[in-house]
């Protein structure tokens, strides 16, 4: 028997399992909060900033990531206010300009309302979402990968850049990576980057039920979806 706490998200009163995050509680209730670095059953890290919400307290609002925010009794959350939507759009624009060669990221860009990309495109093959690191550390208990370096030098690496002998060769790090599936029109080589805009991100479904979860599995790779 779990204990519940009562919280309010976008005006809807919901019961969240005690100790769960606001993001998990919202998804459970079908309220849409987009997320990229969120992954079931592993520790949230709040890296992508897409799942940000407004936490309203004493008349003031604080912006924080809902995946790392523990639901507490009486919390008032705004998950889809105009302010949040604008910020999400800007963050999604930064992400797609950084790594356009990913179906998941193109999905997120469209879902968050990006229509033009004002930054020059880069073509990175990693957005440091940390799914690979966390799946290796927490699910396989192997710790063969980690975030190495600081700032723009930060990247995912093996110790001394050599696959350690305790790596279990499960390939889960590749399975969970959002970069593995390239955009529908085909992989974007250097110089060919663009905002795809035609993905089947159920945008038309979203228009009928604004701010509700449409089960689009944003940010997940193909393999996970196939398993489900």
């Amino acid at each position: 028997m779990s204990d519940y706490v009562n919280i309010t998200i976008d005006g809807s009163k919901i019961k969240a399992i005690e100790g769960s995050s606001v993001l998990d509680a919202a998804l459970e209730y079908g309220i849409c909060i987009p997320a990229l670095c969120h992954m079931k059953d592993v520790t949230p890290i709040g890296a992508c900033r897409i799942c940000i919400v407004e936490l309203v307290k004493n008349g003031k609002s604080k912006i924080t990531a809902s995946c790392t925010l523990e639901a507490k009794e009486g919390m008032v959350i705004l998950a889809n206010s105009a302010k949040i939507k604008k910020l999400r759009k800007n963050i999604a624009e930064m992400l797609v300009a950084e790594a356009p060669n990913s179906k998941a990221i193109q999905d997120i860009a469209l879902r968050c309302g990006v229509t033009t990309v004002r930054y020059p495109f880069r073509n990175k093959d990693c957005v440091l979402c940390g799914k690979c690191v966390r799946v290796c550390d927490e699910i396989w208990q192997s710790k063969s990968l980690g975030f190495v370096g600081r700032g723009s030098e930060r990247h995912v690496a093996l110790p001394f850049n050599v696959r350690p002998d305790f790596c279990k060769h499960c390939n889960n790090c590749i399975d969970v990576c959002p970069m593995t599936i390239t955009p529908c029109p085909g992989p974007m080589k250097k110089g060919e980057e663009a905002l795809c805009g035609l993905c089947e991100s159920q945008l038309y479904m979203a228009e009928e039920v604004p701010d509700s979860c449409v089960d689009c599995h944003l940010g997940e790779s193909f393999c996970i979806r196939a398993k489900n």
Partner: protein
Amino acid sequence: MKTTISKILENKISEDLIEVLQDIQAKYGYLPEEQLLEVSDKLSIPIIEVFRVANFYKSFYLEARGKHLITVCMGTACHVRGAPKFVDEVLGQLGIKPGETTEDGEFSVETVNCVGACALGPVVILDGKYYDHMTPGKLRALIKRTKGK
């Protein structure tokens, strides 16, 4: 048999990792892979974590550095007094950029984001000795004096 590093590791716990790495670097001039593996083993810290810490902090080097280390302070006060010129001076004199070592292994240059001697800027540190109110000319002379020492 007690090696140098087992003395450094004596009575240390995982919390002391940064201090341990600082002591190892003081001994070897940088952090050799072999020693990092030993630290991981003796302090029971996953090797990826040791590797992460060694790569995160600016004061750690994973490659051997030159005999003489030139540190150029790039703090705000030194910057407005012309610190970037020293990077040019070093490039001209020795052909290396910050983070690099000369081919003959004599000099390494690095930048640091403030040593706290701001009223005396621009500051350059050579082999642990602070030089204040530096100019490119003084730096050129200092490099010349140090060559071959």
